Structures are given as structure tokens and as C-alpha cells.
């Protein structure tokens, strides 16, 4: 109802419009250089005001052609390349590949090497999850957790560096065990690349310290009302989505699908350790955060057990100097911090694989994004993207 003021004119805010206005949707390009997209991801969104009617991720900006590159390199050279697929978890990328080659060549890595692989894989998992714990609240506007997580991640990375010599790209696995020697020469041949002295004590101290970090994060982030308001009930992945899109890892476990390659496939001796698979049922952004925080605690448990009953013995089985892999094909998967990572190797015999298919977790985890964003609010995009925890190198590879 319009009201007349003293001058007798109708105020515009009071005028009622009876015509239905055409408000066409707008196409919004986000990226490829956008800070909240974790790299070079371009999103094409159809928005109606603040609401997203459809969204499509455009991937491929980080494509480096790994599957083609590995066709012209021998197995030792591939190990150093595949470190870079998911650069937040370099060590976890190597393990399934090395296990696959070991199964093809029927070489078994000694127990001590297997345990070292478990310890370092779990350390990588912790460092990758701490990176998530730093970036996810940051994207929602909290900068303090970033400082805390990155500070404590350094303790893990220092230990990784003391063993492997690299913080991000360890390149410590070799077919048949861990990196054998500092050099192949006559004087260095006899030195084994075992754990450096003091590693076990330092690891135990790190485990204790990171347990404190988990408690800090519970107080700092988990109970924070603003964080809860931004994440609870946002971006719900249902168990159906998990099966349709092949989502794996913490994202699947946050939706109640308790699948973990560590428990289902014996690619490393995980059956010797007592640990749980944390699951949540809600499937929203908060569950994905909670699962990762719980996974850090479980990984610490595994590291503690593995370090304290580390078996003795050799670090590497006998492997011919020029490694020739017999003809055959094999698929081995492992639990990357992002989810299931697998290598399908086809060998025709010889030093170089014929074809390697790389299955990465982030690719499938990102594929569910259009489904989640359908009808969601644009500000929630940042929360959903952050909670999916993908790495563009892992998506495009």
C-alpha cells in the first residue's frame, strides 16, 4: 500500500510493483587464480543473487602429463616424479607404486623397511591433515589456527627430513626396501640409510606434542560458534554420493562410509597395529573437519606403536642393479591422506613400464562439487571447497 507524504508524492520504497521482473541468472567465473581454490581451479557458476543454481569445475590447468612422462622413465626415476602428484603428501604417493612394482617382481621388502614405510606414511598423513587444519579455518576467516598448525607441522617435517633428506619430496622408497645407501661407491656402499640416531626418542616427543595440538584445536576451532555456524549442515555428502562419485578417504568417512584401504588391503603391515577408523555420519563440512582431526590422533597411535616395536634386520632385499620388471599388470592402491590412491602398472618386461594409470583421490572428491553447490549459497562455496581438501596437482596430474 502506498502512502502519501505531505507533498502528495508516492515514495519509491512504498510503491508496489505488480510486474514480475525478469532477473536472468549471472555467469560468474571464479578462478583460475583464486586463493580459495587451492591452486589453479576455475569454477563457472550460474548464480541467481547469492544462490548458485549450477556450478561446473574446469580442471586441467595443472596437467603435467604424469602418465605419459612415466612411460619414458625407469622405475627408480618414476618414484621421484610421482612424489609431485600430491605435493602435500609426497611420501604417501610413493608407497603404492613401490609396492606394486615389488609385487610384479616378487621382491619382498624386509620387515624393518615396511615399518619405516608405515611410520613415514603416517607422518605424511599428519602433516597433510595439519595443512588442512590450517587452511580450512583460514578460508572461513580464522587466521590463528593457521599459525598453530603450521608451527606444529614443522616438528613432523623436521623428523621426515632427518630420515629422508627432504621435507616435501622424500624419495626414500626403493623397490625392495628403503633408500639403501648414501652412494653406490666403494666407501659408501657399506653405509645403510637407516634411521638416524635419536629418531625414536624425537618421534616419541613429537607424538606427545601433537597430542597437545589436537587438544588445542579442539578448544580453538571445534567449539567455536562462528566455525560451527559456517560448517554445520553445509555441503552435505550423502552415502549415495560417495558410491556414485567414488569419493574416498576422510570425505567418505565423514559421510558414514567407513572404508579405509589401510584396513582392507595389506599393502603395508597395518594389521599389526591397533587403530580405529574414525567416521562421522552427518557428511557436512564440520564432519569432514572432525574426521581429519580424529585421524591425526589415530596416526599418532600407529606411529607410537611402530616406533616402539620397530623390528631389526636389513633395510633392503637383494635387488638387481638394473631392475627389469617381468611382463604383467597389477593394480595396487594405498590410503593417501586425501583418499584412495592407486597405480595400475602394465609392464612388457624391461626397465620402463608400458603404461601406468594413476588413480588419485582428489579427482573423484572434486567431482561431487556440482552436486553440493546446487542451490547452495555462494559464501558456502569457500567452506565446501576447503572441506573437500583437494590438491590441484592431484586432480590434474
Amino acid at each position, binding site marked *: 500500500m502506498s502512502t502519501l507524504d505531505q507533498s502528495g508524492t508516492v515514495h519509491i520504497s512504498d510503491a508496489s510493483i505488480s510486474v514480475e521482473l525478469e532477473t536472468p541468472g549471472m555467469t560468474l567465473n571464479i578462478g583460475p587464480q583464486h586463493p580459495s581454490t587451492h591452486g589453479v581451479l576455475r569454477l563457472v557458476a550460474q548464480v541467481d543473487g547469492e544462490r548458485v543454481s549450477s556450478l561446473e569445475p574446469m580442471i586441467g590447468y595443472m596437467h603435467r602429463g604424469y602418465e605419459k612422462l612415466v612411460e619414458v*622413465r*625407469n622405475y*627408480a*626415476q618414476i618414484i*621421484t*616424479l610421482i612424489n609431485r602428484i600430491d605435493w602435500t603428501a609426497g611420501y604417501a604417493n610413493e608407497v603404492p607404486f613401490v609396492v606394486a612394482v615389488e609385487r610384479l617382481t616378487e621382491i619382498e621388502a624386509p620387515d*624393518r623397511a615396511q615399518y619405516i614405510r608405515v611410520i613415514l606414511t603416517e607422518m605424511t598423513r599428519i602433516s597433510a591433515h595439519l595443512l588442512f587444519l590450517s587452511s580450512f579455518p583460514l578460508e572461513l576467516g580464522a587466521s*590463528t589456527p593457521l599459525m*598453530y598448525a603450521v*608451527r606444529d607441522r*614443522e616438528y613432523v617435517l*623436521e623428523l621426515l*627430513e*632427518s*630420515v*629422508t*633428506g*627432504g621435507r616435501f*619430496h622424500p*624419495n626414500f622408497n626403493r623397490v625392495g626396501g628403503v*633408500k*639403501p*645407501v*648414501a*652412494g*653406490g*661407491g*666403494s*666407501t659408501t656402499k657399506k*653405509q*645403510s640409510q*637407516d*634411521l*638416524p*640416531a*635419536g*629418531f*625414536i626418542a624425537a618421534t616419541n616427543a613429537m607424538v606427545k606434542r601433537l597430542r597437545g595440538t589436537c587438544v*588445542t584445536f579442539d*578448544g*580453538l*576451532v*571445534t*567449539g*567455536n*560458534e*562462528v*566455525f*560451527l*555456524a*559456517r560448517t*554445520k*549442515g*553445509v555441503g552435505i555428502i550423502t552415502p549415495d554420493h560417495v558410491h556414485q562419485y567414488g569419493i574416498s578417504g576422510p570425505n567418505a568417512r565423514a559421510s558414514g562410509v567407513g572404508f579405509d584401504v589401510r584396513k582392507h588391503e595389506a599393502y603395508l603391515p597395518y594389521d599389526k597395529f591397533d587403530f580405529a577408523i574414525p567416521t562421522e555420519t552427518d557428511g557436512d563440512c564440520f564432519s569432514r573437519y572432525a574426521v581429519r582431526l580424529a585421524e591425526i590422533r589415530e596416526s599418532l597411535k600407529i606411529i607410537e606403536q611402530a616406533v616402539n616395536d*620397530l623390528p*631389526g*634386520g636389513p633395510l633392503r632385499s637383494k635387488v638387481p642393479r638394473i631392475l627389469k620388471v617381468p611382463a604383467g599388470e597389477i593394480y595396487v592402491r594405498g590410503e593417501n591422506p586425501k583418499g584412495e590412491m592407486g597405480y595400475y602398472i602394465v609392464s612388457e618386461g624391461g626397465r620402463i613400464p608400458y603404461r601406468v594409470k594413476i588413480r588419485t583421490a582428489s579427482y573423484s572428491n572434486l567431482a561431487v562439487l556440482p552436486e553440493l553447490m546446487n542451490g*547452495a*549459497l555462494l559464501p*558456502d562455496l569457500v567452506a565446501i571447497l576447503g572441506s573437500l581438501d583437494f590438491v590441484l596437482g592431484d586432480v590434474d596430474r
Partner: protein
Amino acid sequence: MASTKLGFPLKGIFKGMGITLVTLFKPTPTVNYPVVKERPTERARGVIALDTDACTSCMLCARECPDWCIYIEGHKEEIQPDKPGGRVKTRAKLDRFDIDFALCMYCGICVEVCPFDALFWTPEYEYSEHKISDLLHDKDKLTEWLATVPTPPALEAS
């Protein structure tokens, strides 16, 4: 779509504030870099050092390098016998040994495959350059790094 109502008196936020307040009085973990330098571990893969006397220019490292960033040239030299009637020996002489650290992936395969212990890792890391072409370290530069090679760390008893 927030399902959680902001509760009063924002207990969670104050709890977080308490944690940051406690951390305020803890020592800082960061290092004032150019003044204070951090020493990486002995195994850190910083830069590669070359022992030219040990190198026989066998090209194994250059061949095994995943991105082919090592350039080697050499020739055979004849050593005349000391005594008359002795055998003429041939000896490999290294002319050029360059590593392009702009290409290098720091994987360490070259160090690993060297059969004569001519290559070593050192944890030195301060060799950034303004020009990318200056990252190509030649024979003399690589030999300079040899002085910084640390002794391997003691091992955990197995």
C-alpha cells in the same frame, strides 16, 4: 544455511581466546632468518658437491637423471710409462661437469648411482641467483661445495 544458533555467551570463542592468551607468553618458534641461521639435518638435500678426482666421466649420473640436468664432457688421456718398455695407460679426464639446479629435482639418483663416490649431498641452501642461468653450477663451483659435506649421522641401533 546455518543450523547452529550462536549461543550466548559464546563459550567457544572465549575458550579459543584463552588458548591464544596462553600462547602469547610462550617462546616464539620462528627464527630471525638472515641474522640467525637454521642448520638443516645432515641428510638434507641442499646442493650437490663433486669430487673431480674421483669422477671418471662414466656418464652414469647423467644417464640416470630423471630430467637430464647433468652435462658431462670428457676425453681420454694417454699417460706415458715411467720406465721405458712399460705400458701406455689411458686415463679419463673430465672437461666439463655442469649441474643445472634450475632443472634439478633434488632426487639424489645421481648421488646414488655414482660407482666412484664422486657426488655428495650437502645441506647448504643459500645459492639463489637473480638470473636463472646462474643456477648452472660448473665443475669449479661444484667442487667448492665439497668442503661443506657433513659426516653422515650416527644410526639408530637396529
